[in-house]
């Protein structure tokens, strides 16, 4: 059962230096209860894509005319990009979609208690009374493993540690029972030990709540531990997508292969670290043809520089946008 359909999403920003293409013609779908990992380097357009789903991008964003984002809810489809008035936006901002941000300190208001922020959003998005909202908030804080939840409810964000804050953020995002949860680098700012706790918590919550999750990260290990399927982005384009096992074990795009090779692996300390050569180009100087050709060791001299690669099959449900792939072309 499909929950979200993104078709031909193109997003540009008008800036003083000119028009910057942040997302270039990407399409994907997400089913209910499915976890999709969205992977890529900084500047690849992961966060901008996620923000587009909630219409949170800045006012200088220009959506392409072909772009469509459709949210399939029980009471009908929502055309996200057509939402204009604040009342319509509430559905995608906190109603059906919730977001967990990277930096938990920056995403809580510093002058309000954790509890009053949780209650505030419940009053906006649900029919609960203030007392019910408080009861639910305390229950959610307890559910995500915060001890002494009713005391924490009255504390401020600065009184909690990083791991606690991220748990509270997750509790807050889930209390409105969203259909879709967007987690933007939720574990990046945390220590490995705390990251492992948060990953375990999210695995449990997916089982219990059954919502769709888009998990944005640059850490392939985190994706392997959480996602059902993966989409790899580079410079605003999606270059590979497929089931998590297929992509991580048999990466078909040279960029995905490069990312995996660049990771230090603990089971083979003698393996040399192989960086992806070169630097990610400035968005003002987007390469022509395949955007990755400037850093690709196997780039074909003519084809890759001039022609944008089409999607082709690399396995069951596994698609790659690369000229080197020999599988049959697909839409």
């Amino acid at each position, binding site marked *: 059962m499909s929950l979200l359909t993104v078709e031909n999403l193109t997003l540009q920003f008008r800036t003083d230096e000119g028009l910057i293409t942040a997302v270039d013609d990407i399409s994907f779908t997400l089913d209910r209860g499915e976890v999709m990992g969205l992977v890529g*380097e*900084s500047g690849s357009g992961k966060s901008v894509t996620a923000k587009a789903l909630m219409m949170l991008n800045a006012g200088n964003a220009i959506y392409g005319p072909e772009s469509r984002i459709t949210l399939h809810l029980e009471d009908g489809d929502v055309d996200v990009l057509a939402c204009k008035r604040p009342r319509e936006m509430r559905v995608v901002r906190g109603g059906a979609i919730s977001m967990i941000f990277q930096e938990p300190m920056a995403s809580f208001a510093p002058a309000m208690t954790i509890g009053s922020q949780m209650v505030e959003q419940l009053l906006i998005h649900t029919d609960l009374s203030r007392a019910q909202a408080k009861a639910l908030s305390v229950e959610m804080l307890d559910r995500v493993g915060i001890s002494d939840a009713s005391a924490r409810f009255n504390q401020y964000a600065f009184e909690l*540690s*990083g*791991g*606690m804050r991220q748990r509270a953020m997750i509790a807050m995002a889930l209390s409105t029972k969203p259909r879709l949860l967007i987690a933007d680098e939720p574990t990046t700012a945390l*220590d*490995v*030990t*705390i*990251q*492992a*706790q948060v*990953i*375990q918590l999210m*695995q449990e919550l997916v089982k219990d709540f059954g919502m769709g999750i888009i998990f944005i990260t*640059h*850490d*392939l*290990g*985190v994706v*392997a*531990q959480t*996602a059902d399927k993966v989409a790899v982005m580079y410079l605003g384009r999606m270059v590979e997508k497929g089931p*998590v*096992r297929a992509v*991580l074990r048999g990466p078909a795009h040279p960029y995905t292969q*490069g*990312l*995996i090779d*660049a*990771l*230090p*692996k*603990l089971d083979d*300390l003698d393996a*040399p*670290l*192989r*960086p*992806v050569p070169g*630097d*990610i180009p*400035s968005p003002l100087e987007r390469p022509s043809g395949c955007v990755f050709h400037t850093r690709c060791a196997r780039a074909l001299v003519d084809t890759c520089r001039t022609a944008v690669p089409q999607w082709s099959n690399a396995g069951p449900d596994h698609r790659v946008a690369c000229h080197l792939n020999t599988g049959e072309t697909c839409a």
Partner: protein
Amino acid sequence: MTSPPNTLISTRDLQVGFAIRKGPFSKGLLKAVDGISIDIPKGAFLGVVGESGSGKTTLGRALLQAVPVTGGSATYDDGEVRYDLGQLKGAALKEYRSRAQLIFQDPYAALSPRMTVRDIIAEPLEVMGLTKSRAETDARVREVAATCRLNLEHLRRFPHAFSGGQRQRISIARALVCGPRFVIADEAVAALDVSIQADILNLLKQLQRDLGITFLFISHDLSVVAHTCDHVAVMYLGRIVESAPTRALFRAPRHPYTRALFSAIPSLDPDDRGRAQVLSGEIPSPTNQPSGCTFHPRCPFATERCKREAPQAEKGADGHMVSCHHWRELAAAPDAIRQAEPAE
């Protein structure tokens, strides 16, 4: 205790404390580094790992005399000069600065946006008066830039024109320009993307080999440390709980904390989920340290003895140091770690 020959940095019971206010009339002492004894041989690549709040950065700063040492001793001896880091002041401190340098974590914050790359790299030379003429400075800057694989045309540009990886190479060039023997890299790759991270790590390794620089590499990322360092020290709440040559440590970690850190690294294998031995709780505040072994509230194997008595460091002939009462029993039953329940 004497340090072996060929030791560059040697600390004995090093302590760094910060005075804090506990209440209106009571003052406390926050022990960020609490009794560290370590010898860093010349040309070594020593990794220091631990969670945030474990005192890694403070240890690095203390060795640069960037925070005052409040107890114990730390010495620097490169064969030409010998400094007692706790007493270093004035001209000697300035001279030491040309021998010990720091690479910062965030290459976006560490470079002045108003200076050209050439000026950024040349500044240490000018401040320390190491070169006699502008031409000499320029020659040295070009030489260092080439070592760090920076394009010479880039020297006239400003930092905003560069990506994270390039900025970190500029930052490294600035640290190297005065010819240091000892460089502390504090989370030098943490802010970089994986595809670039490997490039910077390879550069640091090359500098160790070609220039014989001794590195103290501070990181929270164990897999990065495993691939770059020769020797690793694991810190928890201001103390070193385990230290060993990298291979020995990763093959058979002895301290329960080290084991937990290893198992928390997310595996790249999607079928390996739920393998992580999740450590309950968080690192306690250094102002309120647990009794006995400071790790006991989070340790799945803690016993009554751990609550009462602080473990002593035990060092084997193989250079593997661990401070845990029960490491021998744990090494004998390695699978116990998965079944054990945390102590209440």
